[in-house]
């Protein structure tokens, strides 16, 4: 409701209170001479004011309910963002550790090759076909005779 956004809350309560008082005055104190003179007018106007007051009070209650939900959601979202950041940190740490371990192990394997496999360099011949097969596999390419 637009009116609730700029109308001070106390004015809404005032309208509601005026509606109640007017309705009581119109319907209960109708026997009083001053009221009796404008009884119908007071009754009609006060019922209209009371209706507006009830409607606006309902609007305020609804607005407050939504504001509360928004606040709850804001807290939840900020908690989720903190959790999400924590997950990111954990994952980065895990990847960095794993990558370093993989690199260290890879280097050890290369050292092992240098140390233990080099002696077979003269006995094992690597032909051009083997190199070609390796490169094709590394590049995920088809051999020339399969490309047709």
């Amino acid at each position: 409701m637009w009116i609730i956004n700029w109308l001070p809350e106390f004015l809404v309560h005032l309208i509601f209170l005026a509606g109640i008082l007017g309705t009581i005055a119109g319907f209960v104190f109708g026997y009083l001479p001053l009221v009796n003179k404008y009884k119908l007018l007071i009754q009609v106007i006060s019922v209209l004011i009371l209706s507006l007051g009830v409607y606006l009070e309902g609007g305020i209650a609804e607005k407050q309910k939504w504001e509360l939900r928004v606040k709850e959601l804001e807290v939840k979202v900020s908690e989720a963002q903190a959790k999400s950041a924590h997950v990111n940190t954990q994952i980065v740490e895990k990847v960095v550790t794993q990558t370093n371990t993989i690199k260290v192990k890879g280097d050890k394997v290369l050292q092992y090759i240098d140390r233990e496999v080099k002696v077979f360099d003269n006995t094992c011949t690597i032909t051009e076909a083997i190199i070609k097969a390796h490169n094709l596999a590394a590049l995920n390419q088809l051999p020339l005779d399969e490309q047709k």
Partner: protein
Amino acid sequence: MINKLLLCATVLVAGCTTVVPVKQKFPEVPQILMEKCEPLSTIDKTSVVFSEFLSTVAVNYTKYHTCAAVVSAWQDWYRDQKKISDDLNK
């Protein structure tokens, strides 16, 4: 005059949709996961010794394991972020 006043009053008390001002931001992916896998090494010579050949193969295996670790981290990232998002929308 009364008609105009009634019209104004109706507009003022009319209900309207309110956009909830709370937005869930899509989580940022760690930069380390955005790095592409290194291409596998090839042998750019017509003849190599066995140890050199095997070293290239070993280097490629290391590249594979590094890339697999990143893919695995992506899967963990997705699973964990989805859980956080699902818990939020419960």
